[in-house]
């Protein structure tokens, strides 16, 4: 069975490749042509032989007939001659020819002339008196007179004897046996060919009688009768039929000859070959024409069919190529392709689809072999709960021809892909479904979406998602006449942890805190990391009173406050928390967030580690802040900033060694605003960079102006904010300020805070080195409030430490502060740095610091920050006093 199949397949292949139709047709046509011609020639041959047989039969029959007629005719003549001879020999001259005639003993006088001649050749009796004259010179007469033979003769005929009658004669003997004369019967030669039948011999047949001398006594072809012509070699003894080309008229004839015996005559019968074969030739022509026409038809048909089938083969080849290309493409593609044929019920409604074709990827997608899928119904392949829906969709496409596409979360257990994209296109009797595994894309999309909406570190929703969640919570609250609370959480002093323990620890801390916060809210609540150490919790579905929120709040605070152990350290984290409640504290997300933020600020302002509900006063402050922010934007251009200068005094010599430039903002409405009220704002909105640059320039300008005005050179200290320091332009700014103002770099000192440096010590050191290269002095501001390590401090290219005012305030009473102050001073000296104490307000403080070796100081005890003119006055006055009374203790008012 398999063998046979194989054989059949092999045969088909061979036929298909080597004997394509366009080759088969001409071959077939050639074969057919050969057959047609073979049959035609065979038929012609048959026809010819049959015709020749007919001719042979016919000529034989006619020869027989002619021979019989001749014999009978000659018999009549012979008989008549004998009768007359007898009658004459008995009656002598008394014999009446007329009587014999009347008795019917003579042949018809219409044809025959009977005559009797005496021994002298004179005619003595005749049926046609006067027709014949003396015959003494006639051949017959002489023959009979000279030879005593009792037999009839006929004149032998001679060439040129045309028109002569044939003379049959017989000797008459006298009673004594002597020659007494002859009896003659004369007959027209035509008579012997009068049996010529056109219907049988045709126009070109021949009947003829040849005499002794090989001369035609008579010969007739059609109506043409000739006499006395040469016999032209006709063989009297020829046996059977022979084909001659007759010399006398050049006609080819079948001939038969018969020798007659009563007289020395030979008869011939001939049939013209051309004439006799005419019907055959006609038939032959008909056959040839038929065969020719058939050949032509065949050639044309074969030509047309060949051309058609060639075109068909071409188009089939093209189609096959297209199919192969398509197949290759469809196999190469990453998409699964299913060619589905519609199955209709009796009402022409599509009830199912059959897989007509599927590519390899499609088979892989369904987890089956391709052969298992072909001709399968979808209903047999897929679970019913999905297939109904799917068939409905496909049928819609097959009906309307609309392209259908969608993404679909896979529900078939045997399809591995989680997400599929499929597109369905109508084709002739079904649809083509293209499916693609888009799980990866979907995953990526989800990841991106998650990343866009979530904080990478903690995995909590981010600001983007927060707005959405708040909106949802608000609509939920509106629907159920409930409220929601926004909790704004800022971890206290998180920056310190980050700075001192490193980012990794800070990040871990944030993660833990985030986790704990998540633990103490409901599923429906949202915990969001806004960035840095700021978190927002949205508590939905609240009753709206402070009492009900407090337990939740306390839970959160406890969760945060629980000690955390990280890198071997015990950390206790506190948070400043602000709360705003919908609808009381705002009708939308922005307002609620802003107000919660304000409440949080309030909590921070109230010493951190506490929580504040939003109040209207806070709103007032917010308004102020907004106003300040607004004003700040224009303050530079409106020239509303100015600098004041606080002198720095050498505690040993009491000399003014420098000034610290401090910024002031004269608001056109709110009046003078202290730095602490707007620097943070400026840092938040980025204005600090421009402001810092302005301060730097203004300070340099002033310093140079004083030098130009004759004041002794002194150091101008300028504060650098963290933002400015991070900004890569700081070096350029400093350089530009020095160049443009013409101030020597050695008179400029930049004050950096300890925390600023510690945010990124390596970067800070490199910038500090560059600044040092310029010749600018550096000092560390607010020293002691941070966590600078001794080793780090050692590597800083600084000239001076500034002891933070918080350690000076309680001197000399506070033991801790005394210890710190002393440590800082000794540290500074160890590192060969000068130490300046800030915020000296009392003589006691001054005394203590001076006593313990602090190099320099500044503060209200010496002087308030001064305007440039005031400072000039102050300087001159102080110089004068110093000149009079030496070191002075109370200088400032």
């Amino acid at each position, binding site marked *: 069975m398999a063998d046979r199949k194989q054989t059949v397949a092999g045969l088909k292949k061979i036929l298909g490749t080597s004997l394509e139709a366009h080759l088969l047709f001409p071959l077939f046509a050639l074969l057919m042509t050969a057959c047609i011609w073979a049959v035609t020639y065979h038929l012609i041959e048959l026809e010819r032989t049959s015709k020749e047989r007919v001719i042979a039969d016919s000529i034989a029959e006619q020869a027989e007939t002619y021979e019989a*007629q001749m014999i*009978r*005719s000659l018999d009549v003549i012979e008989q008549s001659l004998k009768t007359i001879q007898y009658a004459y020999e008995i009656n002598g001259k008394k014999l009446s020819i007329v009587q014999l005639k009347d008795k019917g003993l003579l*042949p*018809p*006088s*219409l*044809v025959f002339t009977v005559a009797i001649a005496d021994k002298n050749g004179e005619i003595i009796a005749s049926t*046609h008196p006067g027709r014949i004259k003396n015959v003494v010179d006639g051949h017959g007469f002489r023959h009979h007179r000279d030879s005593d033979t009792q037999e009839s003769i006929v004149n032998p005929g001679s060439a*040129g004897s*045309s*028109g002569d009658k044939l003379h049959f004669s017989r000797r008459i003997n006298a009673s004594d046996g002597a020659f007494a004369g002859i009896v003659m019967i004369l007959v*027209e030669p*035509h*008579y*012997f060919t*009068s*049996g010529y039948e056109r219907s049988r011999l045709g126009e070109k047949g021949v009947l003829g009688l040849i005499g002794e001398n090989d001369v035609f006594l008579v010969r007739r072809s059609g*109506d*043409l*009768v*000739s*006499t*006395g*012509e040469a016999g032209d070699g006709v063989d009297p003894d020829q046996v059977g039929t022979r084909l001659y080309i007759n010399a006398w008229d050049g006609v080819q004839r079948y001939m038969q000859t018969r020798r007659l015996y009563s007289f020395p005559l030979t008869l011939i019968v001939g049939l013209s070959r051309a004439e006799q074969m005419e019907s055959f030739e006609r038939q032959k022509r008909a056959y040839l024409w038929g065969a020719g026409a058939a050949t032509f038809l065949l050639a044309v048909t074969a030509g047309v069919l060949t051309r058609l089938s060639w075109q068909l083969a071409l188009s089939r080849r093209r189609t096959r190529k297209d199919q192969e290309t398509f197949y290759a493409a469809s196999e190469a593609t990453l998409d699964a392709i299913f060619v589905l044929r519609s199955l209709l019920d009796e009402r022409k409604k599509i009830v199912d689809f059959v897989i007509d074709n599927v590519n390899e990827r499609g088979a892989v997608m369904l987890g089956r072999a391709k052969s298992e899928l072909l001709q399968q119904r979808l209903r047999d392949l897929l679970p019913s709960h999905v297939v109904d829906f799917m068939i409905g969709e496909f049928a819609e496409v097959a009906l309307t021809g609309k392209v259908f596409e969608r993404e679909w979360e896979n529900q078939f257990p045997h399809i591995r892909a989680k997400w599929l994209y499929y597109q369905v296109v109508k084709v002739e009797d079904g649809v083509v479904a293209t499916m693609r595994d888009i799980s990866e894309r979907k995953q990526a999309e989800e990841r991106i979406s998650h990343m866009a909406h979530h904080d990478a570190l903690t995995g909590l929703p981010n600001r983007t998602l927060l707005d959405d969640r708040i909106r949802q919570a608000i609509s939920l609250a509106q629907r159920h006449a409930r409220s929601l609370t926004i909790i704004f959480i800022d971890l206290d002093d998180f920056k310190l942890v980050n700075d001192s323990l490193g980012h990794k620890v800070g990040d871990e801390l944030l993660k833990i805190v985030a986790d704990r916060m998540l633990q103490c809210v409901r599923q429906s609540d949202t915990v969001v990391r806004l960035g840095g150490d700021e978190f927002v919790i949205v508590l939905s579905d609240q009753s709206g009173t402070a009492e009900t929120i407090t337990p939740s709040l306390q839970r959160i605070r406890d969760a945060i406050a629980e000690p955390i152990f990280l890198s071997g350290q015990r950390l206790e984290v506190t948070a400043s928390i602000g709360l705003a409640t919908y609808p009381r504290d705002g009708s939308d997300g922005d307002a609620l967030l802003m107000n919660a933020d304000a409440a949080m600020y309030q909590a921070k302002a109230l010493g951190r580690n506490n929580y504040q509900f939003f109040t209207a006063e806070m709103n007032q402050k917010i308004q102020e802040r907004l106003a300040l922010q607004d004003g700040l934007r224009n303050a530079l251009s409106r020239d509303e900033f100015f600098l004041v200068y606080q002198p720095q005094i050498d505690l040993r010599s009491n000399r003014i060694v420098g000034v610290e430039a401090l910024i002031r903002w004269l608001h056109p409405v709110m009046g003078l605003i202290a730095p602490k009220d707007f620097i943070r704002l400026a840092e938040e909105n980025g204005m600090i960079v421009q402001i810092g640059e302005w301060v730097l320039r203004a300070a340099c300008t002033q310093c140079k102006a004083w030098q130009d005005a004759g004041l002794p050179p002194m150091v101008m200290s300028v504060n650098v904010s963290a933002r400015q320091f991070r900004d890569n332009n700081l070096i350029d700014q400093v350089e530009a300020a020095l160049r443009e103002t013409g101030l020597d770099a050695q008179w400029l000192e930049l004050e950096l805070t300890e925390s600023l440096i510690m945010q990124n010590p390596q970067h800070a050191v490199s910038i500090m080195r560059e600044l040092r290269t310029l010749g600018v002095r550096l000092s560390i501001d607010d020293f002691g409030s941070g966590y600078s390590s001794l080793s780090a401090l050692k590597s800083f290219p600084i000239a001076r430490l500034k002891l933070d005012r918080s350690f000076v305030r309680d001197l000399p009473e506070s033991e801790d502060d005394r210890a710190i102050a002393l440590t800082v001073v000794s540290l500074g000296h160890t590192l060969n740095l000068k130490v300046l104490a800030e915020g000296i307000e009392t003589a006691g403080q001054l005394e203590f610091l001076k006593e313990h070796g602090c190099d320099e100081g500044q503060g209200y005890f010496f002087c308030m920050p001064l305007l440039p003119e005031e400072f000039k006055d102050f300087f001159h006055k102080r110089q004068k006093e110093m000149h009079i009374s030496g070191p002075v203790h109370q200088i400032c008012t």
Partner: protein
Amino acid sequence: MSFLNRIEMSALGTALFFMAGCAMADVVVVVSPSSSVTAMSQNQVSDIFLGKASRFPNGDRAVPLDLEEGSDERDQFYMKYAGKSPAQVRAHWSKIVFTGKGLPPKEVLHSQEIKKLIAENHNLIGYMDRSMVDAKVKVVAVME
């Protein structure tokens, strides 16, 4: 030297000669008054004389009588009733005689003899000039 003679040509020549020479002659066909035959068509007459029929239209045996060759009435008769010249008549009879299918009519010398013979035998049929007709014979066909 051969002599070719076209029978038709010679027949035509003879016919023309006789038509010119005997324009005035008027040959009628006669039978015995005792015969029941009253009238005959040209074809019936010529058939009997050319050996193609041997009976009268009424079924009686018919025996034709000819005048001798060369007589005006004979030539005129065959010309008018059979459309044949003497040569054609001779050729006609030659063929019949040669093929043994029959013999030409008996010849008599004179119209008088015909009249006499016909009067006695109702099987006979002959022809003669109209002027010869009398009560002894019955005219059955006249060709103008």
